[in-house]
């Protein structure tokens, strides 16, 4: 365990911070430490966790990979899926519609990046505007209500204090992604091409195809997040994905994934998501002005990156 922690200092730092945070809360306001707080934190983590998972895969696979369009995909997928149901699509297909639209939009990003060779930062910035703009334009900015009542018990329910979207969707996907990255050859390809794309091509890894799939997976994860938002809020908001591109990026970097790709894992990303949401919740509970919270998250990111840089240099 110690050896593993030494290998990934970020995970240790995050765990340490989380313990300190919880201890701090216990000291300042012990009333917060209840089971319902845990439920709240996990509920608000679900969407961010799903989106961050996709973002992590894209960044991990290197080639200056980044997906700025995730928030736009969440908004557009939820709005389009909801409109499809209103237009007569059977309600039971709502989850599939979200996933399918997400996947298609993500593959669109992948094609821009791999076929047209547009820098991911620019390609996904462009699609971010296209997706989030279309979501607002299609709806005139109004929320689309009428999510079938059959889905809300799942979106708002909890089992043993763990919200169902987290327990049955986010957590399993993180486990699958973790296993794929560490135990399958395809997962190792991702890390290898992120680490050194030239060598990856030389040893025959189909880099472009893998990268196309990775952008598709990021879209798929955003589509899943869109479905969680529908089942939870009971309506499709055209701006539900607002800020997700930046918060997911924060979670991924905080979670120890190198922005250059090829280094890091999804466990750290999940830990970072939980830390971010716990921090937000704690600050809200202590009634600290929300303006401060934004600054504190930034300071936290700087602190962790500095710590990471120092420990890496020492090694």
């Amino acid at each position, binding site marked *: 365990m110690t050896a593993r922690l030494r290998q990934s200092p970020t995970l240790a730092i995050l765990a340490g911070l989380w313990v300190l945070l919880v201890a701090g809360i216990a000291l300042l306001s012990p009333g917060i430490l209840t089971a319902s707080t845990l439920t709240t934190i996990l509920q608000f983590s679900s969407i961010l966790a799903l989106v961050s998972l996709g973002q992590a895969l894209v960044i991990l696979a290197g080639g200056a990979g980044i997906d700025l369009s995730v928030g736009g995909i969440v908004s557009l997928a939820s709005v389009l899926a909801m409109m499809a149901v209103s237009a007569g699509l059977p309600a039971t297909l709502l989850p599939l519609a979200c996933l399918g639209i997400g996947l298609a939009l993500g593959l669109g990003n992948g094609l821009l990046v791999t076929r047209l060779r547009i820098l991911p930062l620019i390609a996904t910035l462009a699609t971010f505007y296209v997706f989030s703009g279309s979501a607002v334009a299609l709806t005139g900015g109004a929320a689309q209500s009428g999510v079938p009542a059959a889905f809300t018990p799942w979106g708002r329910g909890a089992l043993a204090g763990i919200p169902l979207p987290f327990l049955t969707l986010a957590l399993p996907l993180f486990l699958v992604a973790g296993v794929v990255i560490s135990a399958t050859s395809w997962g190792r390809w991702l890390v290898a091409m992120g680490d050194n794309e030239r060598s990856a091509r030389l040893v025959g890894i189909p880099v472009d195809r893998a990268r196309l799939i990775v952008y598709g997976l990021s879209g798929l994860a955003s589509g899943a997040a869109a479905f969680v938002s529908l089942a939870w809020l009971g309506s499709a908001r055209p701006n539900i994905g607002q800020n997700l591109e930046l918060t997911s990026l924060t979670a991924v970097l905080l979670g120890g994934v190198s922005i250059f790709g090829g280094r890091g894992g999804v466990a750290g990303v999940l830990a970072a998501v939980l830390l971010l949401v716990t921090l937000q919740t*704690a600050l809200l509970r202590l009634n600290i002005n929300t303006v401060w919270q*934004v600054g504190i998250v930034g300071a936290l990111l700087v602190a962790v990156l500095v710590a990471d840089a*120092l420990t890496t240099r020492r090694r």
Partner: protein
Amino acid sequence: MLRQLKLTLFAATLLATGALPASADPANTVAFVPQLIGIPYFNAMEEGGKKAAADLGVEFIYSGPVDTNPVDQLQIVQNLIDQGVGAVSVSVLDASTIAPVVEQAKAKGVKLFTSDSDAPDSGRAVYVAQATDQGLGYAIIDEMVERVGEEATVAIVSGEATASNLNAWIGFMQERAKDKYPKLTLLEPQYAGGAADRAAQIATDLMAANPDLKGIIGVASTTCPGVGQAIETAGKIGSVIGTGYCSPNTARSYLKSGSFGYSVLWDPAKLGYLTVWAGKQLIDGKPFEASVQLPGFDSPTTYDPATGILLLGEPAVFTADNVDQFDF
């Protein structure tokens, strides 16, 4: 390792900076969650809420998102409910910002209600409303007739032609003119979109085309400055009276120059006061009476049990004399 620990501690200190102990008695606390923080309108509501809290002996929490993000707003509401705050009022971004927590609030005995912006059919305890479309439409015509007389021609410059709230206000203006002031001529509404300079152009054209024009109503807050400027540059101060639904900060310079005779809106500070008062009533389990006169309010607030709406009262009229008492 030591360095790592130091950094960890450093980060943790950052987290703890500014931390304050939570309020003494959560059950005797009324919270208000605005749509976003840091804008004069909601700051005024916060001020009113603080005043009410001091008068009524309750704690007051004001907490809202830094941008109009529904999930951030929901998170704040959720946390207030988890804290067991006595009553939580929300200016909802839309129904989705409280729908997921209505049942939870009921189970925990937290009174969840809306203020300033409503989510009908959500199961909220009450909606504290600032004004009705009818009240706003009637008030601006009544005030205009008081200044220009009944036999006058008045123009209407609105914003977007599709904006439902603006069109509702215009509809009630026309209804009031038809029912109560048959000799008053209301010109067909002109639409300027969201741009103040377009509103100025339209207002200038209207004055040129109708030499007997006595008043111009700028319906959207974005059209107010255009109307005021047009009257000033046309040298018609005194002969044409401008007005509109705009905040004191927007209308101030035009009220002072005389191009605006008055401005109609509501007072968000009073709305904040009423919100906290309503929260206190809910915590105490007291029912709302059909009509109540609160201290410092110009007109009584009314409650409609059928719709569950607690109405602030008549709209506020801002003039050159009282505009400096307001800051929003």
